[in-house]
């Protein structure tokens, strides 16, 4: 009669994803590429912010590319490609988040020599992307003024994993009776000390500060 045996495993469940992500991060950081993972709920302005970001960085002569995750369609890739920079679409066909190997697969055979910034627009979802490291050096969580100031309190896991929060669509703040102090307090409660930027992709407000932050983070990778 055999007896059950206990195996103490004590391993991260997402170990395989973490290892892929870690090796991607190492390669990108060595090459001086700032990889930015943009997460938020659907409709909070990821694509609009990124389109402006890609356009403005490219106009400054920076080498930029983007991958965008959606369940279906390449609509967002086409919108982002209007900026003139290389863009690839990842269709997850039902999966609610991106995983490191999906990103890696979509980067193969893509000549990104000299790249300075790679943006990953995650699937719009405030829960599922939380634990999936994509090899990014910067995770940015968006909160649109149209969403309700307490979103970070409702989805603390995701906001807690972010390095920077960006409040988007500030041009609509007045119409939405957006309570800025409440939003800032909610972000602070979930991730004390996290930098918060306020932007409007439509008017351009706050975008200089956003680009400045990206530039600083990239320079810190290369030790410049």
């Amino acid at each position, binding site marked *: 009669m055999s007896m059950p045996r206990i195996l103490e495993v004590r391993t991260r469940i997402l170990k395989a994803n973490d290892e892929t992500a870690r090796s991607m991060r190492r390669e990108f950081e060595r090459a001086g590429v700032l990889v930015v993972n943009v997460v938020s709920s659907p409709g909070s302005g990821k694509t609009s912010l990124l389109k402006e970001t890609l356009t403005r960085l490219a106009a400054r002569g920076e080498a930029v590319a983007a991958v965008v995750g959606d369940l279906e369609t390449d609509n967002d890739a086409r919108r982002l490609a209007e900026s003139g920079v290389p863009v690839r679409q990842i269709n997850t066909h039902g999966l609610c988040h991106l995983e490191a190997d999906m990103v890696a697969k979509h980067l193969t055979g893509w000549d990104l020599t000299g790249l300075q910034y790679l943006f990953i627009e995650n699937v719009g979802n405030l829960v599922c992307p939380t634990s999936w490291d994509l090899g990014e050096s910067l995770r940015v969580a968006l909160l649109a003024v149209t969403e309700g100031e307490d979103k970070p309190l409702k989805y603390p896991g995701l906001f807690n994993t972010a390095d920077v929060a960006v409040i988007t669509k500030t041009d609509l703040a007045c119409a939405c009776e957006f309570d800025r102090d409440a939003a800032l307090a909610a972000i602070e409660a979930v991730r*004390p000390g996290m930098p918060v930027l306020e932007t409007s992709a439509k008017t351009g407000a706050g975008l200089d500060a956003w680009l400045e932050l990206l530039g600083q983070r990239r320079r810190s990778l290369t030790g410049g």
Partner: protein
Amino acid sequence: MHELSIAMRVIDLAEVHCRAEGGGQVVAVTLRIGRLAAVEPHALRTALAMAAVGTLLEEATLRIVEVPVAIWCPGCEREVDLPGLVPLACPACGTRSGDIRRGDELDLESLEIMVAEVPA
């Protein structure tokens, strides 16, 4: 429903460990899930039951240890457990702290395996 992706990773990992020990069946799996990990235990349980069919975990009992959030409080100079997820602030003195010490785990803690008997 990222719990299904997580369940599949649990199965992959558990099978690798079980086979490394000579195979057999996994009779119990213990996971440690931090409350900040954005994983819903009931959904994970359902997902694992579905995904385990036809694997070494088909008959396995799932134990989920939910881990409350603990932060380092610089004010009190000690680790403190939080009653909930937010705010990330010391319940005793109110000092904010993002220095999370527990509560973001997503770990395969242990397996109980029944190794197939080798005939003498």
